[in-house]
C-alpha cells in the first residue's frame, strides 16, 4: 500500500514537473529556440551580431512585418487572409508602372485606392455574405495574380529615372539614421496595437473573433467588423508595396509570391492563435523578427537562400505543436 502511495505521489510530482516544463516551453519555447540559434550563428559568423547586420535584418523584415500587422487583425477577428501575397505583387507592379505614367503622387493614391478595393471585395464576401475566409482569400490569391499578369501583359515593369524621384524615400530613405521602412513598420504597428488594446473598435474585433454569435447578441455589427479587418489588411499591403516598389524601383509580376506563408509563419511563431479572439501585434513583431534573423543567419553561414524555406517549415510545425501540447497538457497525444 505504501509503495502504491509513493508511486502515485511520484506520478503526481512527475506530472506537475512535466506541466511546468510544458508551460515554460509553450510560453517561452520559441524564444529559447531563437536564442540558441542566435548564439550558434554568432559563433560561426562574426558579422551576425554586428549593428549593421541587425539593422539590415530589421529593414528586410519590415515588409513582411507591415503585412503581418494587418493580417494579425484579420486573424484576431476570426478569419484568415491568404490573398496578401498576390495583392503585394499587384500593388507593387501598379505603383511602379504608374510612377512614370502619372507621377509618384498619383501613382501612390491610385495604388492605395485599388488595393483597398480588393480588400473590400474580400470583406464583402466574408463579412457580409459569410463565405469561408480560407476559400475566398485563396481564390483571391489566384484571381489577383491573374489580374497582375493581365495588367502587365506578362512584362516586368521598372522606373526609368531612378536617381531623382522622391518616391525613393519609402524604400531607400533614412530619417535620423533609421531606415524609413523600419519607421513605417514601427509606426503602423504602434497605431494598430494601440487601436486593438485601447479602443472600443479593438474590443469589438476581439469579441467577434472570440465568439461571433455572442458578439451579435451583444449588439455588435459583426459584418462591419469583419469587413473592416480586411480593409486594414489591404491598407497594410499597400504600405508594404510602397516600400517594396520604392526599394527595387522595378517589379516582377510575382514579387509577392509566398509572402502569405511567410506572414502566417511570423504570426504563428509569435504565438497568435489561428482560432481568433486572441493575439497581439507585439507577438507578431517578435515572430517576424525571429524569422528574419534565422533566415539571415542561414545566409551568412553560406546556405543557399532556399534552405530558409525548409527551416521555416520546421519552425512553424514546432510552434504549432508546442501550442497544441500546451492545450492538451502533454507533448504526445495518447488517443489513436
Amino acid at each position, binding site marked *: 500500500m505504501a509503495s*502504491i502511495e509513493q508511486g*502515485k505521489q511520484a*506520478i*503526481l510530482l512527475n*506530472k506537475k514537473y512535466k506541466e511546468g516544463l510544458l508551460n515554460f516551453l509553450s510560453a517561452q519555447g520559441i524564444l529559447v529556440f531563437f536564442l540558441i540559434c542566435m548564439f550558434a550563428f554568432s559563433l560561426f559568423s562574426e558579422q551576425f551580431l554586428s549593428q549593421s547586420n541587425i539593422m539590415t535584418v530589421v529593414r528586410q523584415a519590415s515588409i513582411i512585418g507591415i503585412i503581418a500587422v494587418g493580417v494579425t487583425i484579420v486573424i484576431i477577428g476570426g478569419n484568415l487572409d491568404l490573398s496578401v501575397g498576390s495583392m503585394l505583387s499587384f500593388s507593387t507592379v501598379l505603383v511602379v508602372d504608374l510612377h512614370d505614367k502619372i507621377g509618384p503622387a498619383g501613382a501612390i493614391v491610385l495604388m492605395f485606392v485599388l488595393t483597398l478595393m480588393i480588400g473590400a471585395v474580400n470583406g464583402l464576401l466574408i463579412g457580409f455574405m459569410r463565405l469561408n475566409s480560407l476559400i475566398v482569400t485563396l481564390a483571391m490569391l489566384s484571381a489577383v495574380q491573374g489580374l497582375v499578369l493581365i495588367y502587365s501583359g506578362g512584362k516586368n515593369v521598372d522606373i526609368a529615372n531612378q536617381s531623382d524621384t522622391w518616391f525613393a524615400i519609402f524604400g531607400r530613405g533614412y530619417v535620423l539614421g533609421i531606415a524609413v521602412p523600419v519607421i513605417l513598420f514601427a509606426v503602423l504597428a504602434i497605431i494598430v496595437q494601440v487601436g486593438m488594446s*485601447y*479602443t*472600443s*473598435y479593438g*474590443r*469589438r474585433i*476581439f*469579441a467577434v473573433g*472570440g*465568439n461571433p*454569435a*455572442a*458578439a*451579435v*447578441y*451583444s*449588439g*455588435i*455589427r459583426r459584418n462591419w467588423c469583419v469587413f473592416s479587418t480586411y480593409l486594414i489588411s489591404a491598407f497594410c499591403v499597400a504600405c508594404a508595396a510602397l516600400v517594396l516598389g520604392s526599394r527595387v524601383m522595378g517589379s516582377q509580376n510575382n514579387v509577392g509570391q509566398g509572402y502569405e506563408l511567410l506572414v502566417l509563419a511570423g504570426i504563428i511563431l509569435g504565438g497568435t492563435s489561428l482560432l481568433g*479572439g*486572441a493575439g497581439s501585434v507585439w507577438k507578431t513583431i517578435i515572430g517576424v523578427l525571429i524569422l528574419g534573423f534565422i533566415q539571415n543567419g542561414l545566409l551568412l553561414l553560406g546556405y543557399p537562400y532556399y534552405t530558409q524555406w525548409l527551416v521555416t517549415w520546421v519552425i512553424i510545425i514546432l510552434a504549432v505543436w508546442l501550442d497544441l501540447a500546451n492545450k492538451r497538457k502533454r507533448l504526445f497525444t495518447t488517443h489513436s
Partner: protein
Amino acid sequence: MSTTAISRNPRHSADSPSPVLSLINITKKFPGVIALNKVSFDVRAGEVHALLGENGAGKSTLMKVLAGKHQPNGGQIFLAGEKKFFENPKQAKKSGIVLIHQEQSLVPEMSVAENIFLGSLPLKWGNRVDWKKLHADSTEILKRLKCTFSSRDMVSNLSIAKKQMVEIARALVFTPRIVVFDEPTASLTDHEKPVLYDIIRNLQKQGVGIVYISHRMDEIFHLSQRISVLRDGEYNGTLNTADTSEDEVTKLMIGRTLKLDHASKPREFKENMLELRSLTVKGVFEDISFNVRKGEIVGMYGLVGAGRSEVAETIFGLRQPSAGEILLDGKVESIRSTHDAVARGIALVPEDRKDKGLILGMNCRDNMTLSALGSVSSMGFMKTSEEKVVYDKYQRAMKIKTPSWRQKVGNLSGGNQQKIVIGKWLHTHPKLLILDEPTRGIDVGSKAEIHGLIKELARSGYAVLVISSEMPEVLGVSNRIIAMYEGRVTAEFDGDAVSEDKLVQAITGQYVTETSGPAHSASA
C-alpha cells in the same frame, strides 16, 4: 434515523450501507482560488445523493475531480473500496463514472447519435463505424428519453433543452456505476423533467449511485435520499432528506434562512413601451399580439418549442417578421439587427449563456461592458477606470464570485457566469428589458436578489418581459402572464389572480380564452 430514507429506496440502501464511492479530503486549487478545501463526500449504490451549495461553492469542481477532468492537489478517491487516481476523463469513464456536464460539452458539428456515443462508437470489421447500429442504438435511447428529434439531427440545430437531453442520453449508453447530474434541469421545462426523474429512478433500481446537483429545492426533496452541502469550497454537513426541511438546508447553504422576496410587484404602469400586432415569422410563430407597458413586468410561459425565445429574438432584431408589426413607444419600428435593437433601448438576456451570452475567453470586466462600449469610452478610446467602476457595481449588486475582474469568464462557475450576462444587460439601461430564463443556474439566495432587482427596475420605469419555464418564477414576478403553445398565444392572465391549473392548461393547448383574439378561433 435512516429508516425513512431507506423506505424510499427499498432495494439497495438497506443491504449496502457502505458507499460505492468515497471522496476523501479532496483539495483543489486554481490560481487565486481554493475551490475545494479537504472536502469529503460519498455515494451509496442505488441512492440519489444531492449536492448543494451557493454559486461558486465548488460543486462542479468536485465532480470534475471525480470524473478525471481536474486532478486534485490532495485527497483520495475510492471506488468500490479500491483506490483510484484518474489522470483523464477517459480513465474515469472506464471505471464507470459518467458526468452530465452543467455547461454542455457536445460537439455541435456532429449528429445526435455521434455525440451520444462519442468515444465509444460501435465498430464493425475492426475499425469501421457501424452506422446502422449507431443510429439504431441512439434511436432506442432517445425513445427511452421520449425525445422527438432524430438521431441524425445536427446538434447545432437543436434547442438548448434538446441539447440537454442529448447530454443526458450519454449516461444511458452503458450501465455505469456512478452518474453525476450537474444541474440537468436548468434548461428543461416541467414537461421534460418527469422523463428525467423516471430515468434516474431506473438507474437507481439497477444499483447505480447518483449525484444530483441542483438549485431547485423541490427537485432535491423529490429525488434524493441524502443531501450534502458545500460552502465556499468546504464541506458543511450531510442531512437525510426525510428528516430535514428546506429551511434547514438553506441555512446550511447560505448561513441564514432565506428572506423571501418580499419586494412587492410594481403597480404603476404608464403607456405602452412594446406592442406586438399580429407578429408572425413563418413556420416559427404566428399572429402574436400583446403589449408591455412602462413599469410593468410581463411573463411569458410555455413549453420548450412554444416559440417564446423566437418571439424575443424577433423583437431583438435577430429574425425578421414575415407579417405583423412591432411598436416601440407607440411608433412602428423595423428592427433590422441587434445593433438597431440596442440603439433603440432593447436588451435581451439570452437563454444560452455559453453560446450567445458570453465571450468565454474574455475577462469578466470586458464581458460586462461589451454591450455598452459607448458608455465607457470617449472618442472610441476605452476608459478602463470607468469600466472597472461599472464592473464593481454589478459584481457587488449580484455578489459575483471571482478572484478578480481579470479572471476569464470561462473559468467562473455556471451561476456566476449567468450573473455576468445579467449585469451586462442591466448596464445598457434599456427601456425594454427582455430576460430569457434569467435565473438559470442561479442559487436560491441570489435568485431572490435578482427577482428583487427586476422588480426595482420595473418600478423605476423599465418595461420588462420575462420568459421562464419555472412556474414559481413567472408567478412571482409578473403582473401579467402570456401563455404560449405551439407558436401561438393561447391566453393572457393576471399575474396575481391566475391558478396554476389554468396556466398548465394554457401552455398545453387545452385552454383558450376570449383574450386570445378572434384570429385563433377562426383558424382553429
